[in-house]
C-alpha cells in the first residue's frame, strides 16, 4: 500500500511541477511575469519500530521568484525613462518648429530688414510695396510660430487629460487587485495577481512619481505629491482637471481627496505627467514669452522710428503694428472687487516669468512665479502714480481683500494680437521730418545740415522756423528771445537738432521747413534699418534677432538634454530590468532541462507503481491455491 501511495504522491508532485514549468514556458513572453517554482518536500515519515519510513513527496508551495528591491529599481527607472522620453518628445516638437531654416523667425526678420535697406537705397521706387509685402510676411511668420506653439500647448494639455484618466484607471485597478490579493490570503500566494499588480504599479510610476508601501496583509498603499493617497487598501482617489484659477480657458490638475478638490499641480513630478508639466513650465511658456517679447520689442522699435519721419503722403508716420497688451487676470477666488490694468512700458526690463500680484491686506506685492522672488514696487497704483516694476506699469482700481491674487503675463499674448494696421507701403516713413537751408544772402559760407530728431514728441516737430543770427554768438528763432550760440554746438529747434558747419556771422539766416515732396530722402528709412541691431531686450543687451537665436539655442539644449537623459535612463532601465529578469525571467533552456528532469522522475514514479503492482501480483500468485 505504501509503495503505491509513495508512487502516487510522486506522480502528483511531478505532475504539479511539470504544470508549473509549462506555465513558465507559456509565459516566456509575458511582460511582468515572474518565473514560478514548485517547492517539493518529503512527506512526514511513518514510524515503523526500527525507524522512519518515508511516505513520499508533496508540493509545499508554488512561489514566484521575486525581488522587491529590484522591482523597486525597475519602477524608479521606468518613471525616469518615461519622464525623459515624454519631455524629449514634447521639447522635440518645439525644437523641430524652430529648426526649419526657412520657417523660423530669423529668415523673415532678415528679409524684412533687407527690404528696409532696399527701401532706404531708393525710397521713391516700388521698394515701398516690396517692404510692405515683407512686413506682412514677417507678421504671418510671428503669428504662425505663435499658433504652432499654442497648438503644442493644447496638445500638451490634452496629454495631461489623458494621463490623468490613465492614472485614475490604473489606481482603481490596483485597488481592485488589492482586494483580490487580500481575499486570496497570505498563505495562498496569488502569484499571477501579484505580478499583475506589480505591472500596474510600474505603469502608474511611468505616469507620475509614486511612493509604494506594502502592507502586512498583502495590499499596497500608493501616495503621490507630498503624501496624497492615491490607493489606500481597496479604495482609490482620483486626479482631475479643473478650470484654472486665473485662466478659464485652461485647466489645472487637482486632487479629489476626502476634503474635495485641491490643487496639486505644483507637487507632481516625474513620469509622463510630471514631464508634461515640466515641459509647459520650462520649455513651452518661456518660448512663448520670448517670442512675445521679440514681437513687442520689434513693433515698438519700428513704430517709434516710423513716427520720427514723414511717410509717402508727407505726414508723420503712424503706427505700423499693434501688438497684444500684457495678459492680466484676477483669481476666481478673489473676494475683493479690485481689478488691475497693466501696461508694458519697457519690454527690455521684464523677466521671462509669470508675475503674481498679491494683496496682503496692507500692500500690493509682486512676485516672480517659479523662483518666488519678490519684485520691489514703486508708486502707489493710481493712474497718476502707477506701480512700476520690471518695465511694467500697474494701475489698481476697486477695493481689494487680503489674499486677492492676480496673474500677469507681460508678453505671452502679444503675438496673438499682432496686427499689421496699415494698408500699403505708403505708411512707411522714409524721409526726415524737416530740412534746413542757409539763406542765399548769408555773408558767411556756413552750411546747416538737415537735422536729426531728438524729441519725436515735440508738438511743433514739423513747424517751419527761421534761425537768425543777431551776432556771432547769439541767434533768435522766429524772432524770439536771443539764444547764446557757442561755436561748434548744435542748435535744437522744435525737437530737431541741427549742426552748423562754418562760422556764422550776424545777419546769417537759416530756414527750417517741413520736408515736403522729399521722395528721395531716406534718413528715416536708414534709421529704420539700423533698428536691426538695436539692443533692446534683456536690459538692452541683445537685439530682437539675437533673442530669437538665443531662444533656438535654449530650446535646442533643453531638447538635447532631455534626449540624452532619455538615453541614459533607458540604459539604467535596461540594466535594472536585466537584473530583475536574471532572477525572475524565464529561461527556456532551464525550463527544458527541468522538464526533462521531471519527465524522467515522472516516468520513474510510474515505474514505482508498476513495481508496486508487480509485487502485489507476486503476493497474490504466491497465495493462490
Amino acid at each position, binding site marked *: 500500500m505504501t509503495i503505491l501511495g509513495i508512487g502516487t504522491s510522486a506522480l502528483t508532485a511531478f505532475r504539479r511541477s511539470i504544470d508549473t514549468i509549462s506555465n513558465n514556458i507559456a509565459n516566456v*513572453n509575458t511582460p511582468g511575469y515572474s*518565473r514560478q517554482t514548485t517547492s517539493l518536500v518529503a512527506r512526514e515519515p511513518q514510524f515503523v519500530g526500527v525507524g522512519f519510513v518515508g511516505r513520499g513527496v508533496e508540493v509545499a508551495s508554488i512561489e514566484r521568484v521575486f525581488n522587491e528591491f529590484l522591482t523597486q529599481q525597475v519602477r524608479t527607472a521606468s518613471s525616469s525613462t518615461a519622464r525623459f522620453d515624454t519631455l524629449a518628445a514634447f*521639447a*522635440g516638437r518645439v*525644437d523641430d518648429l524652430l*529648426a526649419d531654416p526657412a520657417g523660423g523667425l*530669423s*529668415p523673415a526678420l*532678415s528679409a524684412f*530688414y*533687407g527690404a528696409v*535697406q*532696399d527701401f532706404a*537705397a*531708393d525710397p*521713391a521706387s516700388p521698394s515701398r510695396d516690396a517692404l510692405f509685402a515683407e512686413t506682412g510676411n514677417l507678421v504671418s511668420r510671428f503669428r504662425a510660430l505663435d499658433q504652432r506653439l499654442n497648438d503644442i500647448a493644447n496638445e500638451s494639455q490634452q496629454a495631461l487629460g489623458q494621463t490623468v484618466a490613465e492614472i485614475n484607471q490604473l489606481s482603481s485597478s490596483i485597488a481592485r487587485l488589492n482586494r483580490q490579493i487580500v481575499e486570496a490570503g497570505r498563505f495562498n500566494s496569488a502569484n499571477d495577481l501579484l505580478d499583475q499588480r506589480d505591472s500596474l504599479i510600474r505603469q502608474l510610476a511611468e505616469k507620475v512619481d509614486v511612493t509604494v508601501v506594502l502592507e502586512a496583509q498583502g495590499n499596497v498603499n500608493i501616495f503621490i505629491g507630498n503624501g496624497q493617497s492615491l490607493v489606500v487598501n481597496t479604495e482609490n482617489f482620483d486626479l482631475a482637471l479643473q478650470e484654472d484659477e486665473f485662466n478659464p480657458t485652461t485647466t489645472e490638475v487637482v486632487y479629489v481627496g476626502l476634503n474635495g478638490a485641491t490643487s496639486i499641480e505644483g507637487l507632481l513630478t516625474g513620469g509622463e505627467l510630471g514631464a508634461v508639466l515640466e515641459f509647459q513650465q520650462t520649455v513651452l511658456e518661456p518660448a512663448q514669452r520670448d517670442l512675445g517679447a521679440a514681437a513687442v520689442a520689434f513693433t515698438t522699435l519700428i513704430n517709434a522710428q516710423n513716427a520720427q519721419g514723414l511717410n509717402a503722403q508727407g505726414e508723420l508716420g503712424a503706427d505700423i503694428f499693434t501688438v497684444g497688451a500684457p495678459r492680466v487676470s484676477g483669481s476666481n477666488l478673489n473676494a475683493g472687487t479690485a481689478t488691475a490694468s497693466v501696461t508694458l512700458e519697457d519690454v527690455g526690463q521684464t523677466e521671462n516669468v509669470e508675475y503674481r500680484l498679491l494683496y496682503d491686506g496692507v500692500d500690493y506685492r509682486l512676485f516672480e512665479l517659479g523662483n518666488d522672488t519678490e519684485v520691489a514696487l514703486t508708486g502707489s497704483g493710481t493712474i497718476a502714480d502707477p506701480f512700476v516694476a520690471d518695465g511694467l506699469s500697474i494701475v489698481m482700481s476697486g477695493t481689494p481683500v487680503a489674499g486677492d491674487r492676480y496673474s500677469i503675463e507681460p508678453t505671452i499674448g502679444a503675438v496673438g494680437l499682432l496686427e499689421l494696421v496699415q494698408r500699403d507701403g505708403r505708411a512707411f516713413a522714409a*524721409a526726415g521730418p524737416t*530740412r534746413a*537751408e542757409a539763406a*542765399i544772402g548769408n*555773408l558767411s559760407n556756413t*552750411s*546747416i545740415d*538737415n537735422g536729426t530728431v531728438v524729441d519725436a514728441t515735440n508738438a511743433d516737430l514739423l513747424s517751419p522756423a527761421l534761425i537768425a543770427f543777431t551776432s556771432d554768438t547769439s541767434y533768435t528763432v522766429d524772432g524770439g528771445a536771443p539764444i547764446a550760440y557757442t561755436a561748434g554746438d548744435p542748435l535744437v529747434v522744435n525737437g530737431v537738432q541741427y549742426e552748423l558747419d562754418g562760422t556764422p556771422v550776424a545777419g546769417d539766416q537759416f530756414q527750417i521747413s517741413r*520736408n515736403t*515732396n*522729399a*521722395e*528721395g*530722402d*531716406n*534718413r528715416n528709412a*536708414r534709421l529704420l*534699418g539700423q533698428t536691426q541691431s538695436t539692443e533692446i531686450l534683456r536690459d538692452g543687451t541683445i537685439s530682437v*534677432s*539675437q533673442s*530669437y*537665436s*538665443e531662444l*533656438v*539655442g*535654449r*530650446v*535646442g*539644449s533643453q*531638447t*538635447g538634454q532631455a534626449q540624452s537623459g532619455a538615453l541614459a535612463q*533607458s540604459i539604467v532601465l*535596461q540594466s535594472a*530590468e*536585466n537584473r530583475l*529578469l*536574471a532572477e*525572475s*525571467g524565464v*529561461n*527556456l533552456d532551464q525550463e*527544458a*532541462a527541468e522538464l*526533462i528532469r521531471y519527465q524522467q522522475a515522472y516516468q520513474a514514479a510510474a515505474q514505482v507503481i508498476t513495481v508496486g503492482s508487480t509485487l502485489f501480483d507476486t503476493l497474490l500468485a504466491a497465495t493462490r491455491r
Partner: protein
Amino acid sequence: MTRVSDQSIFNANLRAFDRLRTSISDLQEQIATGRRIQRPSDDPVGASRLLEFRESVTRIQQFQRNASLAESRLQLEEDTLRDATNALQRVRELVLQAANASQSSETRGFIAEELNQSVEALLTLANTRDATDGFLFSGFQSGQQPFTRTVAGFQYNGDQGQRFLQISSSRQVPDSDPGDAIFARLREGNGQVLVTPNPANTGTGVALLTTTSPVTSYNLQSYRVEFTSPTDYDVVDSGGVVLTTGVFDPETAIDVAGFQIELSGNPSAGDSFDLQPSPNTDVFSVVQRIADVLEDSADSPGSRAEVDNEINRALGGIDQALNQVLTVRTKVGTRLSAVEAQIDTNAGTELVLQRSLAEIEDLDYAEAISLLASQTTALEAAQQTFVRTQSLSLFNFLR
C-alpha cells in the same frame, strides 16, 4: 554565474536594432541634406550661432547691393560733373575769345549764340535723371526738377538734402550732392569780394581784381573807388568817409581793404568802382549774363569798356564755378574709391563668414559615410547573431 532570461536576450537585441536603425536614419538624413545640424538639439550652440552668421551674411550681401547702387549713382554723378567741367572750360575759352580786341560786335554776337547754347547744355546736365528717373541733383526732392529758368532768373527748386547709403554696418556714403552746392551758391568775383563799375561811368576804365587768395582781415563791408579827376581817386567806405586818396597809375594796383584792383583804360572824373562782399549767384546766370552783354554790345569805346568789365566779372564767376564743380568731383572721386574699397572688404568678410558658416553647418562627408558603413555593418552583425542565438534552444533536441 548570472541567469539570462529569454526576454532580456530578446529585448537587448530589439534595443540594439532600434538604436542602430535610428543612428543609420539620422546619418542618412545628414548625408541627404549635407547638413550636420538637422535640428537645434543636434548642436544648440552651433544652431544659435548659425542663425547669427546667416543674418550677418544676409546683411553683408545687402550692403554689397547698396554699395553697387552707390557706385553706379556716383559714377553717373562723376560723368555728369566731368561733362559740366568740359562745358565750363569751353565757356571760359569763348569768353576769353570775346575779350580779344579784334572782335567786332558781330563776331561777339556769334560767341553769344554759342554761350546761349552752353547755358542750355549746363541746364540739361544739372537736371540729369538717374536710372529710376529721379533727378540726381535735387536733394531730397527727387521728383522735382532742380533748376528752372524763370522771369527773375534761374531758380533752384531742390533742397540741400543728401541721401546716404549704408555700405557697411558702420559706414554710410552720400550717393549724390544737392544741385545748388554744385551749380549755384556761387560767390562771384574772387569768392570773397566782387568789383563792379558804376553803370553811370562815362570813362573807359576797366577794373580787374587780382587778389585771388582770401583776405582774412576783410570785414564784409562795401567800399568804393571814386575818381575825383581822371588822375585822382579816393577810397571811401560805405559811410562815405574817405579812407585813402591816390594818384591813378595803370601800372600800380589800387589797394582797397587789402584787395588789389588793377585799373586800365581812362576813367573820367566822377566814375566809380564798387567793391562789395561777393553776392550769391549760379553758373547759369553767370554765363547767361555775359552772353546777353556780348549780344547787346556795340563797337564804341564806352561799350568796349563795359564789355571788358563784364568779361572780367564773368571770368571770375566761371573760375569760381569750375572750382566748385572740381571740389565736388574730388569728393565724388573719394567716395567712389571708398565704396570700391568697401566692396572688397565686404566681399572678404562675406567669404570669412561663409567659411565659418560651412564649418558649423556642413557635414563632414568622409566621417559621416564611414560612420554609416560601420553602423550598417554593426546592424548586419546584430541581425545575424540574433537569428543564430534564437535557434539555440534545448527544445530543438527534445524529440
